[in-house]
């Protein structure tokens, strides 16, 4: 891979030899141009016009030769794309039915989420449905903002500026294809195929890969692609990449063409006056475009020289970015580069091209779902620079920075080319201060503590006043309660150390593993000798590491944990401790389930042996072990078997319903409310019951 391929923008060789001719091309504007021709005789004018037409031809060809491959592309993949494996046949391409699209589009009314992008002179918004769309491509819905509401006031969109919008009234539109053509490209086709007025370029069809160059308008109509192998088996692409190719915009090229045609018309005139009159019809803007294209071509020549001179990569990227910025009025999409890969060798490619569309439009309200908490970044779109506003939308830091990202209230990252600079917002002095040593923000732990990583990828924690709370020598740092859990490694093996949020190191002895759970303040500690203990959220080792193993009770991890003990016979038994290490139940249980509806099913090892009962949410025995089998509580009742009968019991263990038949021959299953159309319940001997024991009629 050459440097050229790595560049975000690639310049193709171009031809601008004709630009160096000594003609009127150096003239700035229309008036000046016509003035320069007035003193010429008709014959001299004709000579000049011939030269001008040749120049305009060269200018046009050179402008068309400028090609920029932008790095932003859409791509996707499915499967591994290896040839020689069994080919999955693709279903024949079909359009989604309007009957499916219409109700889904109507459902947008129930929820559109707006995300505000603070900007000057006008904030922008991104809209998305609050639910997954099954048929509609949600990113193809277009939105027009009609009204904005903020603080109970109605504003026109352009009046909003940096204020936070509460809600917006929108017109949402969706266009979908109702008919399509199939364009077949054969492996044997060379260079290009035509579809109507479009010429579809074929860069390569080799083995299972194809690269096509599509006109922009054609690409907009493209709604799908498939291929078939020599046996006619249809294949979906296993991967695709669609990359826009930018060049001098077709509108600019058309303007130069029109300029050239006007010069030709002038040349055909029989008098000087008539010729000048034809030239006078050329719009003023065409002169501007012509001059700008000349400037652009000179810049391209300079970049080409710099590239040949092996300019450092970063500098070259910067030069090209500046080029794009400088000529953004001339540049526009020209073609789409489509790369497709299939599972097997390609014989034919099928491009599905929409020929007819239908569309819907409806007015709806969108809610700005994101509360403006604290500081935010904003962009000044007139300069492309970023600044910071406070919660009341007052500008704290004017827009003077390159792209800024917010990581936390006071830490921001600025991207400059491929570099990142981390800034700290000094709120008092209203200025950004650079964080030294190339430290980057990793994550925010709470409103006051932020994890950074240094150049060697070691993590540490800084407070919101830049004070170091945890030194930079760890691989991962998390927060549990008021304890900073720092995972480090020595010779490839993890160790854990702990700090208070005030930055004081907690002595917990050697710990090789620390288990934390989201929403839980307690930390399970594992020593190098494989003993388990608990550190509470205040940093106290509340349960000294002495247990064989400890696990959090699922769904109730905040206060209770299960501990394990192996008996002399090798069997493992379980007990329950609280976070302080106090044994709630001794290790005499054979099984402990998850907490469901504040009850935990358990099985005893003691007397009576192997019987089930229930613990409450404090880990205390609520229903003593007496059941032969027992399930989780559902809607206040649990299915148990007792004395060869299936029963429902309440949370005190009282039988509230007895199912017909005995247990011996019963076939029982618990219905999964997420997947079963009947919801929660039981299926017993082919009959469905609610959790309360009511028979469900099928």
């Amino acid at each position, binding site marked *: 891979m050459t440097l050229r391929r790595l560049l975000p923008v690639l310049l193709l060789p171009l031809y601008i030899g004709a630009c160096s001719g000594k003609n009127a091309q150096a003239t700035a504007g229309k008036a000046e141009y016509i003035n320069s021709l007035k003193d010429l005789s008709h014959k001299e004018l004709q000579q000049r016009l011939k030269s001008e037409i040749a120049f305009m031809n060269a200018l046009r060809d050179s402008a068309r030769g400028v090609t920029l491959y932008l790095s932003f592309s859409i791509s996707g993949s499915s499967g591994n794309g290896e040839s020689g494996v069994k080919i999955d046949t693709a279903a024949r391409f079909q359009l989604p039915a309007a009957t499916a699209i219409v109700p889904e589009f109507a459902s947008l009314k129930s929820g559109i989420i707006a995300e505000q992008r603070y900007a000057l002179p006008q904030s922008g918004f991104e809209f998305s449905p609050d639910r997954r769309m099954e048929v509609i491509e949600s990113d193809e819905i277009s939105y027009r903002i009609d009204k904005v509401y903020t603080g109970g006031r109605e504003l026109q969109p352009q009046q909003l500026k940096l204020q936070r919008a509460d809600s917006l009234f929108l017109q949402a539109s969706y266009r979908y294809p109702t008919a399509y053509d199939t364009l077949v490209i054969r492996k044997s086709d060379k260079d290009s195929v035509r579809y109507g007025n479009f010429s579809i370029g074929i860069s390569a069809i080799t083995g299972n890969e194809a690269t096509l160059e599509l006109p922009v308008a054609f690409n907009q109509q493209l709604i799908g692609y498939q291929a078939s192998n020599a046996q006619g088996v249809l294949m979906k692409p296993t991967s695709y990449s669609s990359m826009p190719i930018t060049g001098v915009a077709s509108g600019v090229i058309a303007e130069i063409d029109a300029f050239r045609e006007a010069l030709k018309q002038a040349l055909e005139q029989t008098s000087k006056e008539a010729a000048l009159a034809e030239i006078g019809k050329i719009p003023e803007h065409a002169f501007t475009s012509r001059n700008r294209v000349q400037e652009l071509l000179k810049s391209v020549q300079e970049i080409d020289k710099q590239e040949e001179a092996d300019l450092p990569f970063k500098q070259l990227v910067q030069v090209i970015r500046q080029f794009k910025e400088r000529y953004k009025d001339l540049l526009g999409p020209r073609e789409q580069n489509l790369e497709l890969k299939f599972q097997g060798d390609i014989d034919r490619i099928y491009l599905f091209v929409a020929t007819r569309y239908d569309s819907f439009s409806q007015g709806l309200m969108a809610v700005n779902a994101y509360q403006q908490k604290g500081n935010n970044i904003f962009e000044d779109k007139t300069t492309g620079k970023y600044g910071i506003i406070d919660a009341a939308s007052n500008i704290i830091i004017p827009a003077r920075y390159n792209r800024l990202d917010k990581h936390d209230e006071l830490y921001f990252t600025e991207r400059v080319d491929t570099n990142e600079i981390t800034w700290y917002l000094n709120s008092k002095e209203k200025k950004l201060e650079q964080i030294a040593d190339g430290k980057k923000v990793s994550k925010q732990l709470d409103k006051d503590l932020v994890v950074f990583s240094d150049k060697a*990828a070691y993590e540490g924690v800084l407070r919101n006043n830049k004070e170091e709370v945890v030194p930079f020598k760890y691989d991962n740092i998390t927060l549990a309660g008021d304890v900073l859990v720092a995972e480090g*490694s020595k*010779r*490839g093996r993890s160790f854990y150390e702990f700090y208070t949020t005030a930055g004081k190191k907690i002595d917990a002895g050697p710990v090789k593993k620390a288990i934390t759970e989201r929403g839980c303040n307690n930390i399970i500690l594992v020593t190098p000798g494989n003993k388990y203990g608990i550190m509470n959220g205040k940093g106290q080792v509340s349960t000294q590491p002495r247990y064989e193993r400890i696990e959090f009770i699922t769904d109730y991890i905040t206060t209770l944990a299960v501990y394990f003990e192996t008996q002399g016979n090798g069997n493992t038994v379980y007990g329950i401790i609280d976070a302080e290490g106090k044994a709630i139940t001794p290790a005499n249980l054979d099984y402990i389930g998850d907490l469901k509806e504040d009850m935990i099913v358990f099985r005893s090892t003691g007397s009576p042996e192997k019987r089930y009962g229930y613990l409450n949410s404090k880990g205390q025995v609520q229903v003593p072990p007496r059941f032969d089998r027992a399930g989780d509580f559902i809607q206040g009742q649990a299915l148990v078997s007792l004395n060869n009968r299936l029963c429902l019991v309440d949370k005190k263990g009282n039988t509230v319903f007895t199912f017909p038949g005995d247990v011996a021959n019963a076939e029982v299953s618990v219905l999964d409310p997420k997947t079963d159309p009947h919801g929660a319940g039981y299926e017993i001997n082919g009959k469905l019951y609610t959790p309360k024991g009511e028979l469900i009629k099928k």
Partner: protein
Amino acid sequence: MQKIFLLFFVSLAFSSCSQQPQYGKNPLLLDQFNFKLDVGSFYKDESIFRGKSDFSVSASEISYAYKDHQTTFIQYATRSMSQDRILAKYGAMNFESLGMVTDSADEKVLLVSAGTDYATAAQVEELLKKLQKAYGQATLSTTSSVHLEQVRIRFQAEGKVIKLTLDDIGTQIVDSEEQAPDPLPFGAKYEAKVVDAIRKKKDGIHVMLFVVTPMFDEVLQEARSFTGDLTRY
């Protein structure tokens, strides 16, 4: 002044002689390996464990029964290999993979395993001769082999066991019908068979050389499951 220069050169010469092997920096020489390796110095560069280097090493705990107690050991393994990066040597044989087992305190080296996938028949023959010369009579393991075309030749010396494993040599050295005792003396007959087999190999021969303490050899003899390089012991 002359004295100062002399001292300088002497100290320079001394320091170059006592150069400590370091993973990835200096190959570990196995010819006279005696387990007196400072593990901390050898794996001094933390970047090799953190994916910040061309080298990549993993370390994990393994557990085996030893004298009726379940004992933890530390196993190091090379995860990124290249012929350009020689990690260990025995004579002229270069190894691009290097593993190690240490005690639970991660202080004492109990096993070193050096591997290559690119050995030639001539190199293997030379290695075999060197081992025979250094450690004398060897035995051939005939049981517990995962692959029938794997050869495991064991040398016993004072304070260490050396095991040479050759994988996929294309021939079964000990016939499965043969009622061979285990271990079997690695005599001329089997040596000739091995040499004949490796000479027929067209691609690189997979070689693994273990240098093991008698204590850890005992542990591995009793072990029921293996991981990484130890699967070839």
